[in-house]
């Protein structure tokens, strides 16, 4: 049951082979056994999970079940959950129990999922390695001396170790795709604005987007379908109806031998240049060969401004973060310093004690680039670069349907290897950040292993609102390969 797909779990629940309470218990027991080694969860709520599972069983018994009813899931701790701790990986919110549910949490609860707990993450989703959590680093299930990727590393590690079959994440500069790649699971970040950000603790509002982790693209589809749709409570939520993201997967191809005949895959020269590790390159090339066998053709495309994505991102995202995080001042919620002399001193001490070093750094960068005299040189300049980068994608999609490339230049590195060098850490996101600047959707799917036996992820990028096709393209590859079925030893 641990390795079952969502379809198999659904069938087992609907035919009475198992119950939601049994499933929840099975996965909760695994979480409690594996979490001391992996630290993938911040909060585990057995009592609540079993209560939700019993309610799901009642729904299934009265034939009122949807695709996700009774299926266990974990939420990244960035999503507010009513009555359950929501820490965002920070000392600032170490005791914060939200009075309301995030949109994503509410939608999935209505769909009948059973929340087993909240997963570990880089503080306020700022990081590429999951080492910035106030609750300690999450470990990679493939090698516990290595990082799982960030900032949704807890969710990715939890799915990789089969502590839970599904998990949510958020992706501001690659935080779903990069940990998915580094832990050997499938992860999708949809088009910006597709999923409401209501109740998702904000880092950088024009980038943050909720996503999904699962073992396969086929399993990601119904979760994303349940999460999406217009929400008037989020002013950046797009006024579009919900979608069935599994519709392309469900289609029967005209030629089963060449199900992707006619698909044009664009390969940006900038994603295959200097800096890409040879073992990662080899795995990506092999995946592209598999796609050619499935009938797709590959064409060279150019993203000439992609190299500017990291500098532009590290102006724009911290600028938005410095504004968003100003709400944490020790007045209405969150950490308040024990001793202070006046109101200003209370703000300074509460924020100095409550935020970790990386969060403080990004707030300082944001404060600086928005300050008088520097706004034009940094913030406005970065916004102009954002347009150039977005235009590159628009031009590329005139020549291709999907863009493919690596997720990360290397496999998961050793814990602590880059913690003293933020610039090196930032550069590890070189293939993911441009996608967030343009707001287009991206998927990471397992496509092999590096020389160190760590997973490698293939990134597929689509034009705006092309999630159904992206998941289909990933699914066709997963029908002829088994990388997504490989499990780390710890998950046995």
């Amino acid at each position, binding site marked *: 049951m641990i390795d079952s797909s969502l379809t198999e779990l659904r069938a087992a629940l609907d035919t009475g082979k198992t119950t939601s309470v049994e499933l929840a218990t099975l996965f909760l027991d695994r979480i409690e056994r594996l979490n001391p080694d992996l630290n993938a969860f911040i909060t585990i709520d057995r009592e609540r999970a079993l209560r939700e599972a019993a309610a799901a069983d009642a729904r299934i018994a009265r034939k009122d079940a949807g695709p996700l009813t009774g299926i266990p899931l974990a939420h990244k701790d960035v999503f507010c959950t009513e009555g359950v701790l929501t820490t965002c990986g920070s000392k600032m919110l170490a005791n914060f129990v939200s*009075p309301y549910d995030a949109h994503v949490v509410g939608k999935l609860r209505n769909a009948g999922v059973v929340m087993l707990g909240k997963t570990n993450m880089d503080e306020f989703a700022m990081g590429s390695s999951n080492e910035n959590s106030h609750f300690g680093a999450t470990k990679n299930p493939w090698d516990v001396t290595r990082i799982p990727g960030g900032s949704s590393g807890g969710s990715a590690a939890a799915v990789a170790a089969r502590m839970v079959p599904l998990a949510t994440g958020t992706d501001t500069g690659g935080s779903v795709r990069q940990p998915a790649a580094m832990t050997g699971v499938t992860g999708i970040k949809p088009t910006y604005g597709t999923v409401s950000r209501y109740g998702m603790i904000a880092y950088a509002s024009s980038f943050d987007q909720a996503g999904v982790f699962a073992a396969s693209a086929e399993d990601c589809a119904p979760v994303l379908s349940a999460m999406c749709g217009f929400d008037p409570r989020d*002013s*950046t939520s797009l006024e579009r109806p919900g979608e069935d993201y599994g519709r392309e997967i469900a289609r029967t191809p005209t030629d089963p031998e060449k199900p992707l005949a006619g698909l044009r895959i664009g390969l940006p020269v900038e994603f295959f240049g200097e800096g890409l590790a040879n073992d990662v390159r080899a795995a990506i090339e092999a995946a592209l060969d598999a796609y050619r066998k499935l009938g797709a053709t590959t064409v060279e495309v150019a993203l000439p401004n992609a*190299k500017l994505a990291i500098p532009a991102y590290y102006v724009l995202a911290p600028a938005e973060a410095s504004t968003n995080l100003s709400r944490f001042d020790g007045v209405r*919620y969150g950490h308040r310093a024990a001793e202070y002399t*006046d109101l200003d001193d209370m703000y300074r001490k509460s924020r100095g004690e409550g935020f970790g*070093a990386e969060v403080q750094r990004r707030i300082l960068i944001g404060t600086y680039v928005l*300050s008088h005299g520097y706004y034009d040189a940094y913030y406005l*300049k970065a916004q*102009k670069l954002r347009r150039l980068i977005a235009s590159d994608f628009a031009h590329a999609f005139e020549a291709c349907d999907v863009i493919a490339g690596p997720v990360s230049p290397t496999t998961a590195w050793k814990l602590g290897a880059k913690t003293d060098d933020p610039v090196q850490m930032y550069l590890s996101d070189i293939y993911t950040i441009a996608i967030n600047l343009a707001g287009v959707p991206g998927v990471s799917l397992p496509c092999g292993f590096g020389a160190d036996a760590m997973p490698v992820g293939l990134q597929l990028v689509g034009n705006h609102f092309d999630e159904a096709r992206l998941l289909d393209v990933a699914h066709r590859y997963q029908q002829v390969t088994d990388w997504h079925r490989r499990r780390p030893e710890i998950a046995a």
Partner: protein
Amino acid sequence: MSLSLDEVRNIASLARIDLSDADAEATRDKLNGIFGLIEQMQAVDTDGVEPMSHPQETAQRLRDDRVTEGDRRDDFQRIAPQTEAGLYLVPRVIE
């Protein structure tokens, strides 16, 4: 560009973050490294390029001017560090 220690202290003050002298020093070194990376932007000619603030370029949506939430003051004040008689308590600001 290189930030001085005084500039780092000034930014921290604007951001309302208490930084010890040792932290300010370490932060300065890391910020200078990051700004070294950011400076690459300046080499690009962006004259005539329209700034982009939203990936879909949609305008901010306005909602009807009507109450959509109920009164949940107690729920929200329950998680506050200090409250009294339905008010958030902060240090005295007017003598």
